[in-house]
């Protein structure tokens, strides 16, 4: 059965970051299977994200206090570079499905650490397995320096256990909160993970001397388990497949589905050894995914909103740091999740301040808008003090004009610009009466002005 344009857009919004007018035209008349195949085909080849951090590969112990300070600054700056680099990749890549799934697991395995090298390494582990085996991803993520340091497995030693990772690997990464496991299972698992560490070069090491070799009883099984065994056992539990399936269904469909669908998807995922491509294509192929009720029912995350606009209009940012500010103000900055439980979702993104900013975003990005520079949040402390001083002196808010350059020629060439066609193309859900009347009363003429108006509707927040 041929899909409508709206349905094709739905696929590209949910399994990507939207679709441009030209590509959409070229896919006219495609079937569901053809679109799903195409999404997978384009994302077939794994390529790591590359950024040069050679300047950070030095032995910190050798550094003087002054040098350490310089190093920390350099590290902070590199984290922002990394964050922007991935944002840029999301905006330009053809591998939209893969990046969309990486984005899912970036939140699932939420890590907040200072090292750009470890962050990038973890991000590439996720990217490598994004359409492959969840089991392998879980194992490699667990053994990454990023995760070992973030959840204190390095401090988890024989006779001095640290339960942080053992708890979260069950609560957040596999079984889901309060499912199957008990507090005793956490304690026993923590013993099994003792000895996991990494070298200065960022290689995983198993320190036999720090490992508790004794017998452990975990989820009803008894043995001299190691950390690898614990992860293997977690994957044996069907609940892990179920938890991941429910979470992915929510990510891709965004509303309640029948329990038959969830059962089917999760047993399929389990039977296929946690093959994520089976999970994702299974969900995309359901009737519930393509149902009218699903189209435009989700609130875009800040990243999806920003990448969506940037992709569609081929925006070139002359001062990309403004993207850090916007992401922060909207409460989602790549590589800086609030905590191990990850970001909020849905209605959680929306309050009066974020909504006002979201509605003004198109005029900011498409029409050189002004943004207030906000120093709150994770500014390194000294910077914050300096900022405070600066504000005390000047008494003025720090405002900056956004230097963003959309490619209007490109957009114009490929879009039919009659008013209702433009709305139809830009907006996924049905628009409200207030929005309709407002657009009808508008006397805007240019494609730019009309684009800005349509993107300023609350409906553009939905996909």
């Amino acid at each position: 059965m041929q899909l409508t344009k709206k349905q094709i857009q739905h696929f590209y919004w949910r399994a990507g970051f939207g679709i441009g007018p030209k590509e959409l035209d070229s896919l006219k008349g495609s079937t569901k299977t053809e679109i799903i195949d195409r999404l997978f085909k384009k994302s077939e080849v794994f390529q790591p994200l590359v950024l040069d951090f050679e300047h950070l590969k030095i032995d910190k112990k050798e550094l003087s206090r002054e040098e350490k300070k310089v190093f920390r600054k350099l590290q902070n700056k590199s984290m922002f570079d990394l964050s922007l680099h991935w944002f840029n990749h999301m905006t330009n890549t053809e591998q939209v499905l893969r990046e969309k799934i990486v984005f899912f697991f970036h939140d699932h395995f939420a890590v907040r650490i200072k090292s750009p090298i470890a962050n990038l390494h973890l991000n590439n582990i996720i990217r490598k397995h994004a359409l492959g085996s969840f089991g392998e991803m879980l194992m490699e993520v667990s053994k990454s320096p990023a995760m070992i340091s973030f959840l204190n497995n390095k401090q988890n030693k024989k006779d001095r256990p640290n339960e942080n990772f053992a708890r979260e690997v069950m609560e957040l990464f596999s079984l889901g909160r309060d499912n199957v496991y008990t507090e005793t299972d956490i304690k026993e698992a923590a013993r099994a993970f003792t000895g996991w560490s990494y070298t200065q070069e960022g290689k995983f090491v198993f320190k036999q001397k720090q490992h508790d070799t004794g017998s452990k009883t975990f989820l009803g099984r008894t043995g001299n388990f190691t950390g690898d065994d614990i992860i293997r056992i977690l994957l044996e539990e069907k609940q892990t497949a179920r938890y991941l399936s429910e979470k992915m269904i929510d990510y891709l469909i965004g509303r309640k589905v029948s329990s038959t669908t969830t059962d089917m998807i999760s047993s399929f995922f389990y039977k296929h050894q946690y093959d994520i491509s089976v999970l994702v294509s299974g969900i995309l192929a359901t009737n519930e995914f393509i149902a009218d009720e699903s189209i435009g029912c989700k609130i875009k995350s800040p990243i999806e909103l920003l990448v969506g606009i940037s992709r569609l209009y081929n925006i070139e940012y002359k001062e990309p740091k403004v993207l850090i500010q916007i992401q922060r103000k909207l409460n989602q900055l790549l590589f800086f999740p609030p905590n191990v439980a990850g970001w909020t979702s849905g209605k959680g993104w929306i309050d009066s301040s974020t909504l006002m900013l979201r509605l003004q975003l198109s005029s900011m990005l498409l029409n050189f808008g002004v943004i207030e520079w906000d120093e709150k949040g994770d500014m390194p402390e000294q910077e914050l003090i300096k900022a405070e001083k600066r504000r005390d002196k000047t008494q003025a808010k720090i405002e900056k004009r956004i230097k963003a350059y959309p490619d209007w020629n490109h957009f114009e060439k490929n879009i039919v610009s009659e008013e209702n066609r433009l709305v139809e193309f830009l907006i996924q859900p049905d628009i409200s009466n207030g929005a309709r009347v407002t657009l009808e009363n508008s006397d805007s003429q240019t494609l730019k002005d009309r684009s800005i108006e349509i993107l300023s509707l609350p409906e553009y927040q939905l996909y």
Partner: protein
Amino acid sequence: MDRRDFIRNSAFASGMLFVPSFLKGMEFIDVNQLSGFKNVVIIQLSGGNDGLNTIIPYKNDIYHKLRPTIAKKENDILKLNDELGLNGNCQALKELYDNGEMTVINNVGYPNPNRSHFRSTDIWQTASGSNEYLKTGWVGRYLDANCQNPYEAIEHDSSLSLALKGKLKKGIAVTDPKQLFQSTREKYFKSIVEHTSPELLDEDNQGYLYKTMLETYSSADYIYERSKIYETSGTYPTTSFGKNLKGVADMIVSGLKTRMYYTSLGGFDSHVNQEMSQDRLLKVYSEAIGSFVNDLKKNDRFKDTLILTFSEFGRRVKENGSKGTDHGSANNITVIGGDLRQAGIYNNGPNLLDLDKNGDIRYEVDFRSVYATILNNWLEVDDQQVLNHSFDRLNFV
């Protein structure tokens, strides 16, 4: 017929202005009835304020021994009693203390303390345990349980903290009521709002976006119209924090139906050369508080106001190698108000002989007990409903 169909079919609704009826739910408090309308001002000192150099155990040998370069000397401080004294930059606070308008609660914290700014801030703002990840804040849950309108909790900032986000309701962030008002009255935005019928909004995401939009629209109107009634004539320091508190005073004195105000002062993460940064910030804090309290007193609103000041954690007792201090755990907090039940030093100062394995102060008072006290004793609402658990209440109010 679902809401979408309804909207689709309801072309007849076009041109009808629903906003005035929506505004009906708003209440201004008559200036004569202001007395007795209790409110709370919550101030976070962001970055982890060093409580030991704020309220100083100046007679304690261990304090001086562990802080050879940054300890405050006896003649640098403002003595509160034989044991504790205020940082010398806090003259205004000393006066409040002497007037019986300030309580110091020592050793406030929570079990298994977390030393990350982000995590510990979340714990304080959500009132969670350290192993619990909540997506709603305690002020937000107060709104959910007790309030009708977003402006019943206002954050004086450009973005809204997790503390003010409830499941159903969220507070409103504003720095400049006029600017917020103007941005919501921008022609295009206004048109959408005026052609939207709030009665049609259900709980799906589209409805939620419109509901938030209408609430912002009407709250902006409410806050702006109301707060311009009174503009304080009191003099405040020219710091941005001083301006924040002036903004809050305008709202309180104008009679906004707001119970909780939230604001913060940042820069307390003093790993290096602490003395310079912390002393300066405490001065900024103290001077602004002094002006704020005077202003409220002049308008007879101080007796109905409670000011809670906290930081996400205290700092390590032992100084580090850079004339600073690293992240610690339990800390002192202050409560300032014109109608305190127990003023002064509420409980014993920190026991520096019995530190935890990191060398940090052990907690004695759970911070959620402080919240429970404010909710129950001061705002007279059900504290358990907001905090999800029962915590012992204190009796500073």
